[in-house]
């Protein structure tokens, strides 16, 4: 325990030194390892409007984290309580979307964009858009695939909308709940430096689903290779946002548990993408898609289909 305390003190010392040396530096040092402080801080020179928030976050990083879930002071049965979850402007929402689509290595989405102001606007409306995008794109894609066939009669397949809605909202809200519960449980056993509130996790998951909207629209293209390339590409982008967010939260834990957690997060994300592709979009040549392992055998698949 003495070692742990000394470790923490040395981190504070470094942070104080850096702050003294360069007052304009943005320091979110409490959750970054001591050995690479300079790289992190130089990268965190964000545009001016972020500085105030960051300074507020650094006078007492511990308190910021503790208060992360507690800044709403209105009682939960009043309307004002829920208004605090929608306290975002247009440019903030657009920034968060941008941050989820272009992840920069080393930057943590929550620390950088959410910053103790998690909102429910993004997750809710991105999920709603995704539901309808997948349903509409699936319908359009099936229409184009079956267009020339004489026996084909177009159907709107409206029932799939409710299925899509259930799946996506369940993923975007239940998986964060499970993950948050799991992280809280691990926090009680192992002293983790970084912890997230439930809303911040919901926020990350919600914004990370944004990449699937253009992906779903591009899935209309009836080429297997194109679709799988899109799956892999969007999985890399949003998966990396999730990994970079949650790795610091499990890093201090048992190695195997940390890897298993991050692996499960990625696996569920991949399952969502692949499942949606398989269920809503018919295979381009009406034979059911081969095993769901893309990659090194991809070329053999396309030579067979034409």
């Amino acid at each position: 325990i003495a070692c742990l305390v000394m470790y923490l003190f040395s981190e504070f010392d470094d942070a104080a030194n850096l702050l003294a040396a360069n007052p304009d530096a943005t320091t979110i040092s409490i959750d970054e390892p001591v050995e690479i402080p300079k790289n992190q801080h130089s990268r965190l020179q964000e545009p001016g409007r972020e500085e105030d928030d960051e300074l507020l976050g650094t006078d007492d990083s511990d308190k910021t984290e503790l208060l992360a879930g507690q800044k709403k002071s209105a009682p939960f049965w009043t309307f004002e309580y829920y208004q605090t979850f929608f306290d975002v402007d247009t440019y903030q929402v657009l920034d968060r979307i941008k941050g989820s689509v272009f992840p920069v290595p080393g930057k943590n989405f929550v620390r950088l964009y959410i910053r103790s102001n998690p909102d429910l606007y993004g997750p809710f409306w991105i999920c709603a858009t995704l539901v309808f995008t997948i349903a509409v794109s699936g319908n359009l894609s099936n229409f184009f695939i079956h267009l020339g066939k004489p026996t084909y009669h177009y159907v709107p397949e409206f029932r799939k909308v409710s299925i899509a809605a259930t799946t996506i909202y369940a993923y975007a809200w239940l998986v964060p709940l499970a993950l948050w519960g799991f992280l809280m449980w691990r926090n009680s056993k192992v002293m983790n430096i970084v912890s997230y509130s439930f809303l911040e996790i919901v926020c990350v998951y919600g914004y990370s689903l944004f990449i699937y909207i253009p992906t779903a629209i591009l899935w209309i293209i009836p080429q297997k290779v194109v679709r799988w390339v899109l799956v892999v590409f969007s999985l890399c982008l949003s998966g990396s946002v999730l990994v970079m967010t949650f790795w610091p939260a499990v890093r201090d834990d048992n190695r195997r548990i940390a890897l298993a957690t991050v692996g499960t997060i990625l696996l569920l994300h991949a399952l969502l993408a692949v499942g949606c592709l398989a269920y809503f979009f018919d295979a381009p040549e009406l034979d059911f898609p081969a095993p769901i392992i893309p990659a090194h055998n991809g070329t053999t698949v396309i030579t067979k289909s034409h």
Partner: protein
Amino acid sequence: FPGLADVSISQDIPVEGEITVPVGSHSPDEDYSTLDEPVRDTIMRDLRAVGKKFVHVMYPRKSSALLRDWDLWGPLVLCVSLALMLQGGSADSKDDGGPQFAEVFVIIWFGAVVITLNSKLLGGTISFFQSLCVLGYCVLPLTVAMLVCRLVLLAGAGTISFIIRLIVVVAMFGWSTLASTAFLADSQPPNRKALVVYPIFLFYFVISWMILTFTPQ
């Protein structure tokens, strides 16, 4: 007074009136009591109010009639007629067809409620029912589009009819979105307007999609 030298009062303007204070026993409700009037008057008044709002939707101007005297008759009539017209689509199985009556109803009302809640949570100053009223009334262009689509489909279901339907639906979708935005945009905080307009766009897009993909038996 020199300035009034050329002012003259025409002799045939009566200048008379009554200056009496109404006595307490004169019931204040007498002018507003609608209990004794013929049923026809009651119905016609409401119908006229609804009709006036329809006109305001079709020719959106900066008027507050929709907002001030909100009512939900118009949205109900529009929603029911739209849901009825969307029936009768063909399907191989129950799962593949178009939306059922209840689904259309739920989408329109639940969608309107969610959008209203969204705009209020973002800090809008409009009241709940006013917003529901505006969103409901602005479904009128899309109902007209559905009517046109069904008429066009009576004539045939080929490519030409699809193109006509597409153009009509897209035009009415634009009209609906612009009309509702015109009425609702002013009550939103200025740096969040896009956040409020986008769900309205999505809402009318979904309704337009349901109309466009309607295929008859």
